[in-house]
């Protein structure tokens, strides 16, 4: 048996309470192996965001199993799940969510703070990661003085700094112009080549088709998965 999947979802159902309850994910199974770069596509309201939240352990499934590195997350306490996010998952958001009051390096260092890494090591590793995303010259700049593309690269660095099992990027280019979009997607492709596992959620089919694997979500169901079509199990 090969190494466990970076992320595996089996028969995941997510319902939001109400009358009638809203079923945002309906029996979803998907497996992401280490080193994969996949696109999760689908129109708004299709359940993409719920999928991201459940994948990223920000939300718990109503039923079904979410395993990270072969470990079922359902048995973990809230504190342990937070620990999983702190060590195993990196998030990149459409709105960047950078803190304006601090420099790029300290924003990236926030990616290590909840692992209990000391300040000096946090800053050293953050500086390295910022160099890796091509921002070695912008370490002490506040994000508010940066372009959209640069900000998203800072956010990517923050998602990478703790060397997660996989990176979840939710519409990472949604707020960017086409030039910055190209730069960020080039960066993601480069990270993929270096072996980082990345799932990019997007509604942009052009971006989706440029990635090695596409998973299409519609109405809470996986409508198609290019990995399964090319090599059905």
């Amino acid at each position, binding site marked *: 048996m090969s*190494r466990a999947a970076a992320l595996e979802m089996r028969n995941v159902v997510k319902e939001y309470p109400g009358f009638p309850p809203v079923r945002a994910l309906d029996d979803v199974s998907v497996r992401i192996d280490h080193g994969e770069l996949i696109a999760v596509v689908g129109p708004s309201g299709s359940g993409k965001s719920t999928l991201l939240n459940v994948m990223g352990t920000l939300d718990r499934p109503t039923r079904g199993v979410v395993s990270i590195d072969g470990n079922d997350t359902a048995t973990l306490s809230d504190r342990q799940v*937070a620990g999983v*996010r*702190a060590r*195993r998952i990196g998030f990149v958001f459409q709105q960047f969510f950078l803190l304006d009051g601090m420099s790029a390096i300290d924003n990236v260092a926030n*990616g290590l703070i909840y692992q209990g890494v000391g300040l000096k090591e946090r800053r050293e590793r953050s500086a390295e990661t910022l160099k890796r995303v091509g921002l070695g010259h912008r370490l002490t700049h506040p994000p508010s003085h940066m372009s959209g593309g640069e900000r998203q690269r800072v956010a990517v660095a923050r998602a990478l700094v703790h060397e997660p099992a996989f990176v979840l990027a939710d519409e990472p280019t949604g707020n960017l112009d086409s030039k910055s979009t190209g730069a960020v997607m080039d960066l993601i492709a480069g990270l993929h080549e270096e072996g980082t596992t990345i799932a990019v959620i997007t509604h942009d089919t052009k971006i989706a088709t440029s990635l090695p694997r596409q998973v299409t979500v519609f109405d809470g169901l996986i409508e198609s998965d290019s990995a399964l079509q090319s090599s059905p199990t």
Partner: protein
Amino acid sequence: MTAAPPLRALGSRLRPSDVLRVGASGPRARKMRTALSALGVSIGIAAMVGVLGLSESSKSALLDEISALGTNLLTVESGVGIGGGDGAFPEEALAAINRIETVEVATAIHDVDASILKTEFVPTGQTRGLNVVAASRSLLETLNGSIAEGSWLNDATSTYPAVVLGSVAAERLGISTLTQPTYVYIGEQYVEVVGTLEEFPLSADLDRSAIMGQPAAEAFFESNPAPATIFARVENGTIDSNRELIPATADPENPEEVTVSRPSDALEAQAAADDALTTLFLGLGAVALLVGGIGIANVMVIAVIERRGEIGLRRALGATRAHIRRQFLTEAVILSALGGAVGVALGIGATYLYSSLQGWRVIIPSTAAAGGFLAALFIGAAAGLYPAMRAARLAPTEALRA
């Protein structure tokens, strides 16, 4: 194959130093708002520390004054009696009081029927509220008075037309220095001013008087041989017995017309009144502190709403609910600690400044300062509790839906 470590071993943790760092990040990023929200608490703390400092300092000044004056001084005055008495002591009253065994020393002042003017050209009526009295030489010592300039009456100046001016009298007559021979116009002649006095600790009447020797008053002016007021120093512990004894001794015919008072009582009453005022201002300070705390709670509630994105992000980065709660609680305590520190500094500064200006001994109430700072911390923690709980309760998915 490399086995990944089991996930349950990987708890999320935030170092205590990072709790402080994370808690400070909000106030640091919004300096203006930090300053304004800390202001309320600092005003409250400054008021409380300042009031306590000033009241301590002023009370110590008062107590100094009381002990300088001595609590064994009695003032004996003769009022106008209901029975139609003449409102004056018998001439022998002073000698009689001096014969009481427990009276250490007694001295009297006599009214002199003459007005004091700056020059002969000033109309007679314009005395500016000043009067002329005659006294024996023991007056100054008995009242713990002191000379500002020149000298007190001596054997020679007591018998010649010469006066010593009370502090207010000197000021109203425009006499600021005695380097040149200085005269005032009393009755119908010029009289030399041989000295000026400092304020008496508690005889404001004498501050407005020109004091001459009793022999001179009798020789050159119309002086009432009966004492107007008698001051008596009594042995400690005999205040009450003397209060009963003196009226009948001073004026055996009309003892009910004699009033005996203790000037230090007035100072003690003043100290008590100050205490009441201090309590009032402390209450006002406490109200300001409370309002400051509510202000911090308000700012924190707004911060939690505004920073939903940050809260969601931190949860995504691995923060637990407890970490978020700690962050916002720390932030509130930082705001109030800033306010408290500034308030303590302001309160001490105000105490120092005002006490020095008043010439009081500066007493910084260290317990009040420490207590004020602790109160600020407590207020901050209380104010931050509800906003911090709200922030912690926020679900990460909801917080990220900005």
